[in-house]
């Protein structure tokens, strides 16, 4: 019989991904309702120093799969490692992050295990009657929500960043670390990673910025960018974008906010010349305050924002920047 909730914790060198806390927080609630154990699994190479943190976050057991073949994420290697490890652990629920790795690993692994996965969930619960996992996720680009369930095991879900509350770390929590041996051969890995290239813009990371100034298609070109950049600097914030600026190469894809870009939860999100499509809002609706600048009073962004100005950014931005400078004395 499958038992327990297992969290896939992504190793980042000797550290773990910041999402681990959110996933363990979500997993703990489910495990408590089921009256079962919360465990974590870390897959990679030279990851052994990570577990203490994961135990402080609530995992009773931390399974570690450590192999030189797992140094970089490669689909074939990770799917096979997880398939073998899950065969030994036999969990009934497996949670992963909706991240670069989770997006690729979760579906392929679910098909390998002849079970299913619900991607990008923002709410998880246990059905009181059936004890099955209820997976709630935005669909149709965020225009609707759906609740799914299935009975094949393990029940898998990926979780949207910043949608779950992390549990406070408690260093007095106890847990054990269990190495898991898997059999991986280089010949199993059919892809070859040639190189990894970073294209991030300099400065504060989008996910960590307290203020984000984001531009949309209506900014039409690089000139407006200078102004946005100046505004972002005033707030020590970052510049984000909707998809069209990325498609037009005005800004690297690492700065895209939305369903298929980054999920951000800054204090302030200033959306300039962005219409507020559901796919864009999927990435920023968790911002504490949204401010919109748009020349179209009917734009959907005004249904999502807390404050707004109707007008052309070419007139609005310079005056706004001047006033902010005056108010902040910079």
């Amino acid at each position, binding site marked *: 019989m499958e038992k327990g909730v297992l969290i896939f914790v992504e190793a980042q060198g000797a550290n773990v991904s910041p999402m681990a806390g959110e996933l363990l927080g979500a997993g703990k609630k489910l495990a408590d309702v089921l009256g079962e154990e919360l465990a974590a699994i870390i897959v990679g190479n030279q990851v052994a120093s990570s577990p203490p943190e994961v135990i402080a976050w609530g995992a009773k057991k931390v399974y570690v799969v450590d192999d030189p073949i797992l140094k970089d994420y490669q689909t074939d290697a990770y799917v096979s490692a997880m398939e073998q490890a899950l065969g030994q652990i036999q969990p009934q629920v497996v949670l992963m992050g909706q991240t670069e790795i989770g997006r690729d690993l979760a*579906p392929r692994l679910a098909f390998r295990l002849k079970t299913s996965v619900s991607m990008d969930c923002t709410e998880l619960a246990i059905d009181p009657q059936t004890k099955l996992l209820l997976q709630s996720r935005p669909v149709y680009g965020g*225009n609707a929500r759906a609740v799914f369930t299935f009975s094949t095991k393990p029940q898998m879900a990926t979780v949207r960043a910043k949608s779950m509350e992390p549990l406070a770390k408690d260093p007095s929590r106890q847990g054990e670390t269990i190495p898991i041996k898997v059999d991986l051969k280089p010949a199993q890995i059919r*892809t070859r990673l040639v190189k990894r290239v970073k294209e991030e813009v300099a400065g504060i990371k989008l996910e960590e910025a307290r203020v984000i100034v984001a531009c949309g298609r209506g900014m039409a070109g690089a000139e407006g960018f200078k102004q946005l950049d100046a505004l972002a600097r005033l707030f020590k914030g970052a510049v984000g974008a909707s998809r069209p600026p990325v498609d037009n190469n005005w800004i690297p894809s690492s700065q895209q906010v939305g369903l*298929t870009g980054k999920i951000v939860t800054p204090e302030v999100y200033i959306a300039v010349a962005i219409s507020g499509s559901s796919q864009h809002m999927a990435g920023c609706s968790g911002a504490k305050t949204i401010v919109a600048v748009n020349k179209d009073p009917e734009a959907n962004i005004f249904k999502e924002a807390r404050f*707004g100005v109707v007008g052309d950014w070419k007139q609005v931005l310079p005056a706004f920047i001047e006033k902010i400078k005056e108010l902040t004395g910079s």
Partner: protein
Amino acid sequence: MNMIVCVKQVPDPEAPPASFKVDSATNKVIPPPGVKPVLSPFDEQAVEAALRIKDAKGGKVTVVSLGNNLVRDVVKKPLAMGADELVLLEDAAFEDSDSWSTAFALAMAIRKIGAFDLIFCGRQASDWDAGQVGSGIAEILGIPSVTIARKVTVADGKALVERVTSDGYEEVEVPFPALVTVSNELGEARYAALKGIMAAAKKQPIVWKPADIGVNPSEVGAAGRRTRLLKLFQPVKEGKCEIVAGENPADAAAKLALRLREAKVI
């Protein structure tokens, strides 16, 4: 080069959010009147990825779409863009499929089509935003997959794929046969030229029923689902936006800054 591209017909994801309606009794989306369905946007880019390889190296591009009551000029768009063949898995039995039953039927159809070097899918369909069917087809067929590509080139029996990562991209090499899912960073799909549209209008798609791909109707569509949809609903938004006005846009902008300071937002 033999290439296969999977494309899905979906309600237009760029239709105004206000036109989006759900029938909560049936857990189904009510198609907005007068808004024509489209090909899921990433799937058009998957077609584009295949056509770019065809332009460079020659070859054949076969497009496959699964559904029921598919609108002919929607699903024929890849033909108009330059694809060679269109196979429709079209039957009531294919309705309401989930990621599993879709991937299974598409994989069986691809097996029937036969020899291929590369399969292309979109990174996710814009209706259910699942992002699973590509990886699922690859797993069922037992071939490697590379997801979320922004560039695909081929040489010496291999594809070189640039895949989008959270902070840039990585380059991955994969031998044929393989499956690649395509993201918007690939760039815009080409327009169909008039000549292509005329040729596509004359071309008849091949239509397959479950029996044609050697599967039982109970294995596909709603009957073949592994997941159950319990509920589909529209979240209520009670947003209220304070529009800051002024004598002119510049004045409004200055007042906005003041208002944000007053509300302790900045």
